[in-house]
């Protein structure tokens, strides 16, 4: 029952993503599609949250999207979980919308607690929020998601060093390890080398998972939760396929930030079952 629900939720989110990006002929479908299982698991299985949105988020789990360009998957998930009307997804990237190209608090969209888009800043913010929780004796958990290309930003490593040195152990971060960025393969642009060794060397507890296998994502996040409170921040290295779920978008960096045309949209929608009703 639950498995079926997650599968259907994910299918609908994928439809939302391609339809949102197509409607404005603008946005980032590739990374969004690759992270659908993560968002679906996080918001349906893992996090304890209140859709009656309050910026302080006391006594609830918090999520920060550091790679803000995958806003379509974030917005679809938030809407489908009750943060704001599903119909509002049709305003994505349009003028006077709360659904800006990159997520922001500026227009007051419920569910978003920080602006992101300029890369590398979300881990620091999450550390701050996690520290605030500790000061408030709030045992909730703070989650973050980062792109793999984003790890080329220096601030990430400042934050990585800090989180382990200061034992920020109510923090579960995840890297969307799809191996692609705008200019091509991450290995060609600026390789990350041995990614897991890097995080271990920086003092983090690392876990790996198959980011497009729902069961594995759910199990890994549960495992990560069980490891909090042990004096170490946790990093999930989550292997994904950019564009997952739409065959012609998979296996290439080319759909990082390009919208499908009418025909391509039709093709994509034929591959994705409408389960919860389109916006």
């Amino acid at each position: 029952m639950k498995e079926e629900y997650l599968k259907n939720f994910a299918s609908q989110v994928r439809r939302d993503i391609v339809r949102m990006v197509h409607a404005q002929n603008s946005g980032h479908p590739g990374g969004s599609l690759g992270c659908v299982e993560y968002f679906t698991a996080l918001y349906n299985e893992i996090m304890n949250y209140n859709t009656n949105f309050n910026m302080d988020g006391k006594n609830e789990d918090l999520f920060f999207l550091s790679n803000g360009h995958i806003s379509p998957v974030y917005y679809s998930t938030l809407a489908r979980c009750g943060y704001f009307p599903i119909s509002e997804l049709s305003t994505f990237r349009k003028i006077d919308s709360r659904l800006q190209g990159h997520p922001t608090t500026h227009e007051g969209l419920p569910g978003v607690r920080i602006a992101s888009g300029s890369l590398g800043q979300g881990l620091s913010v999450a550390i701050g929020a996690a520290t605030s929780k500790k000061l408030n004796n709030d045992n909730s958990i703070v989650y973050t998601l980062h792109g793999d290309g984003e790890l080329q930003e220096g601030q990430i490593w400042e934050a990585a060093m800090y989180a382990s040195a200061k034992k920020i152990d109510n923090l579960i971060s995840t890297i969307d390890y799809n191996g692609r960025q705008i200019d091509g393969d991450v290995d060609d642009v600026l390789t990350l080398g041995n990614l897991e060794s890097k995080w271990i060397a920086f003092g983090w507890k690392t876990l790996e998972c198959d980011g497009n296998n729902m069961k594995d994502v759910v199990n890994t996040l549960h495992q990560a939760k069980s490891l909090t409170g042990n004096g170490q921040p946790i990093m999930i290295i989550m292997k994904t396929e950019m564009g997952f779920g739409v065959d012609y978008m998979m296996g290439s960096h080319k759909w990082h930030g390009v919208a499908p045309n009418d025909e391509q949209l039709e093709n994509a929608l034929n591959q994705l079952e409408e389960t919860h009703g389109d916006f």
Partner: protein
Amino acid sequence: MKIEILGNSDTRSGFGAGLSYLGEINPNVVALCADLTGSLKMNDFRDLYPERFFQVGIAEANMMGIAAGMTIGGKIPFTGTFANFSTSRVYDQVRQSIAYSNKNVKICASHAGLTLGEDGATHQVLEDIGMMKMLPGMTVINPCDYNQTKAATIAIADHKGPVYLRFGRPKVPIFIPENIPFEIGKALTIQEGTDVTIFATGHLVWEAVEAAKVLSNEGYSVELINIHTIKPLDNESILRSVAKTKCVVTAEEHQVAGGMGESISQLLAKNNPTPIEFVAVNDQFGESGKPADLMKKYGLHFTNIIDAVHRVLKRK
């Protein structure tokens, strides 16, 4: 306001004292520092409230992000590092994670301007007011002495929204009485007059006091107004004074581009075009040297204010 020298101290010590006071009265106040605890005079806060003091190391970008995140949950973070590392080094972090996200972070910046002295131009930021005032929603404050810096530090904790508080390293006269309340966005009239208005901020307020003395002896009636809050600017007080004096000199330890004088000239150009002269650094980097020598060399001495007043009076 009666002007007398009440003591001699650095404005950064006023910040340190204000921060410790806040630590006592407001449990939500937290402080972050990037390896400059002694320079920022944050030692007392660190020793008194260790659970609310966060040493982040030499990683200012991370510090700004952590501060932004700590506001989520109701904390009021005060970040402490040099002005250069509080602004130009972390401009994008301040812009996206703090200003655009409207986070209640107090960016507290010491060693602003030429008076940092011997370390030289790498550290002497003279563009920070400009950078920070350009950010929508950012409040920009540059107090002039120990008492005013302490009062400003305490006042900004009650202001909701991001604030840039700029102060400095050298010991300068204390002359703002302790009992003068600090009101964000309200200019402080130091001396009333009718011939010319001098608007001054930060360390240049004392230079302006000295200049006004000489000018009074020369027979001029000088109005001296302390613009401690550069944004939001006290438009009403500025326009009221200029309507009376009809000429203006601005004085600040900053580039002429982007500074307080630029904000005032914009206001006047729109509402009451008036002759104006600027005492500020003119599109130059600083250099190593004693603070007093640098202020003279770069034209920020009280004699430069006197010269500017003479020039502007001729243009009236």
